[in-house]
Structures are given as structure tokens and as C-alpha cells.
């Protein structure tokens, strides 16, 4: 079972995300964060396998969260799920070790596949 933390300040998006992910038998959402500090705190508390992260969030944004997680919990995988596809943000995220960057509006299947792949870890293990 892949354990996921959803981070998005927009309730409609985070609820929809939660529903999409929970619909899969092998995925479970362990917590939902609305702000960047909350995301860091919940990640430390729940130790999820994957964090689904919005870029624009109150309290420092997704970049802050990714940076903190890389420092405190390098084993957690991050998938950015953002309305922004501007190259500067993508580069900034890449510097924090984020490799998966999905733009909001992609099909649900793509979200599920990416989260599942990240959950398997770097060597495809469960």
C-alpha cells in the first residue's frame, strides 16, 4: 500500500485528488495539508511514501516544502501537481530533487500512474 500526503490549499482540488487516489486499492491518502508548514509537519508525522504537492501554497509555497523534505526526509518522493508550468518553477523544483511535475488538468490515470511509480521507489520495489 502506497501512503500519500496531499498538499493543496484549494479544497476542491485536494478533495478531488483524495477521491481519485483513494479509488485505487493500492493507494491511500494519510493526510491533507493546506499550507506549506502544515505539509512539512504532516510529512514528518505520517512518513508518507509520496507527497503530492502544489506549487502555490500559503507559508512558503511548494518549493519550501520540497526543500525541507529533501533535508529532513530524503526518502519521501515528491510529485508536483501544479497549475503553473513555467520553466523557472520547474527548474527550481528540480533543484530540490523533484523529478515528477504534472500540470493540473492531466487525466486522472496519469496522476495515479505517477504516484504509483514513485511509491515503488527508485528501484521499482514495493
Amino acid at each position, binding site marked *: 500500500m502506497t501512503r500519500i500526503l496531499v498538499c493543496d490549499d*484549494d479544497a*476542491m*482540488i485536494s*478533495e*478531488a*485528488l483524495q*477521491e*481519485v487516489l483513494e*479509488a485505487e486499492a493500492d493507494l491511500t491518502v494519510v493526510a491533507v495539508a493546506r499550507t506549506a508548514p502544515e505539509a512539512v509537519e504532516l510529512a514528518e508525522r505520517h512518513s508518507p511514501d509520496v507527497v503530492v504537492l502544489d506549487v502555490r501554497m500559503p507559508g512558503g509555497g511548494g518549493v519550501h516544502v520540497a526543500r525541507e523534505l529533501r533535508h529532513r526526509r530524503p526518502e519521501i518522493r515528491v510529485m508536483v501537481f501544479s*497549475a503553473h508550468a513555467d520553466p523557472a518553477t520547474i527548474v527550481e523544483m528540480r533543484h530540490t530533487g523533484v523529478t515528477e511535475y504534472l500540470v*493540473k*488538468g492531466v*487525466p*486522472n490515470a496519469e496522476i495515479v500512474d505517477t504516484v504509483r511509480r514513485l511509491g515503488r521507489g527508485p528501484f521499482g520495489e514495493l
Partner: protein
Amino acid sequence: MPDSAFQLLVEGVVDYAIFMLDPDGHVVSWNSGAERIKGYRAEEILGRHFSTFYPQEDVIAEKPRRELESAVADGRLEDEGWRLRKDGTRFWANVVITALFDRTGRLHGFGKVTRDMTERRRAEQELLERRRLVTHLVEAQELERRRIAWDVHDDSIQSMVAVGMRLQLLEGRLPEEHAGTVRRLDDAVRGAIARLRALVFRLRPPEIDRHGLVRALTEYLGDVAPGWGLTCTVQDGLEREPPNDAAITIFRIFQEALANVHKHARASTVQVTLSTEDHGTLVEVADNGIGVTAIPAVQAGLEHFGMLEMRERAETSGGWWTFADRPGGGTAVRFWLPTTVP
């Protein structure tokens, strides 16, 4: 020229008040221009002190006396300021006072030439005011666009993304006969999201501050032109970077012109040419499409809303906008904005 002819000339000049003062500043001669500008007839003013022409605050500050002293010290004095007419109304005057010395170096009096500059000053101030208003207008428009872009981006698009995600979930739970309907709904939502994103992209502020106008135009072309199947070239003949508000207006008109090429022209190439001309910036957006007279809306005599907007933007900024068929085929949109102070 005999003295009498010279005197006739001076007396006949109506655009300038030309008169003489004695060494103490009393009026000793008067011409038609002085009468026209200041409103006194010769018999009313001869013998009176020239401080009569100055507003009270200048008299209190002893400006008339100081001006005569400066003229004596430097030979002449030029000043611009308010003066009074006989009826007490003010006019903006350009005044030259020349000290007149005889051969022995004794002060003989002063020659005074006054021009009424009120109209010119008003025109200059109107121009300044107009430029200030245009700057405000451009700023306000940009602010409004930014607000709309944020609202669409943060609210409308997010909501529709969430709706799309739920529609896909629903589709997976429905039997096939109903799933198709939901799939089409999801497609419609996705199309709307793409269009809203394009809108946000068009509304976002151009990054002119950082790298200048030409770079902002080139980058915008690089972003949108490939998707529209357009090959673009930019010719930069600018000698000076236009000021920011003019650059923004140019960018917005260019954006609209390019959108029109995409929507109506059926073109494959666009050439953008910028040059500094006639104290302003001239821009041409030329395509190789079907030409303006072949566009149905233009044929029907309807001016497209975008065209009106482009023209209005240019004219509000004190410039002009036009479009026409190119001799070799296609359409050329040309516009000019004043961007430097003459």
C-alpha cells in the same frame, strides 16, 4: 531703413508688445501689440510705472525693480511668468528687458518686448496632462488584466480541474451507455480549461522591464507562434527603448494583431518590424495570408472588435493605427506611438 519707417514697423507689430521704459521704469512708448496684449491704450499707460503689469505678489517681492537691476547688470533679462492685463486678468508672458545705454554709457532707459504665451502654455500643459492620464490608463488596464488573470487562474481553472477529475471518476463508475456522455462532458471541461489557460497567458503582464520590448515580443512569439503554425521574424530597428507605458501599449496592440493573424489571415509567416521614427515608435506586423479585403468580417463592412481596440489604444496614446493589403499579398498592420518628447 529711415527712423520713421522703423517706428511704423514697431508700432504696427501686433504679436509683440514693444515699448520703452525710462531709467526709473515708467512707460514712455507704446505699440499696437502692447495695446492688444495688455489692453491699455497709449494715453492710459504712458507715464505709469511698469510694475502695473505685475501681479501683486511680484510687486511685494520687488520683482519689477530686481528685473531692471538685472537688465542693467547683464545688459538684458529674459523671464517667463504671469502678468496682468488692464482688466485684471492674467496672461503668461515671455518678457525680454534690454537696458539701453547712450554713447557715454549713461542708462537711457529700457526696451521691453512681451509675448503672450498663454495659449502655448495651455497647449503644453494639456499635452502633459494627457500623457499623465495615458500613463495612468495603461497602468490601470494592466492592473485590471492582472486581477482578471489571477481570478481566472486561481478560481475558475482550479474549479474546472476539480470538476474534470470528478467527471473522470464518475465515468469509471458508470455503465458504458452513460459513461460516454460523461466522457464528452469531461472533454468539454478540458477544452474550456485549455482556453482559459490561453486567456491567462494573454492577460499576463509582458516582461518588458527586464529585457526590453523587442525581447518581450520575441519571447511571446516564441511561445505562441509554433502552436499557431506561424514562422516569425522580428526586425529590430529601434534606436531607443520606448518608455514603459508606451512599450506596454505596443506589446498589447502587437498581441491583438498577432491574434488576428491567427484567427483570420490563414498565414504561415509573420514579420514584425520595429523602428524609431518621427519621435516615436513605428511597428509593422505583416503576414503572408489572404489579405484584409478577403476577410469575411471586413468584406461585410464590420470592423472587428479587436481592430477597434487596437486603434483605440494607439489613438489614446496620441498615435495612429492602420491596416491594409500588402502589395505582394497578405496584410500589414502598422501603428505608431509617440515615445519621445519632441
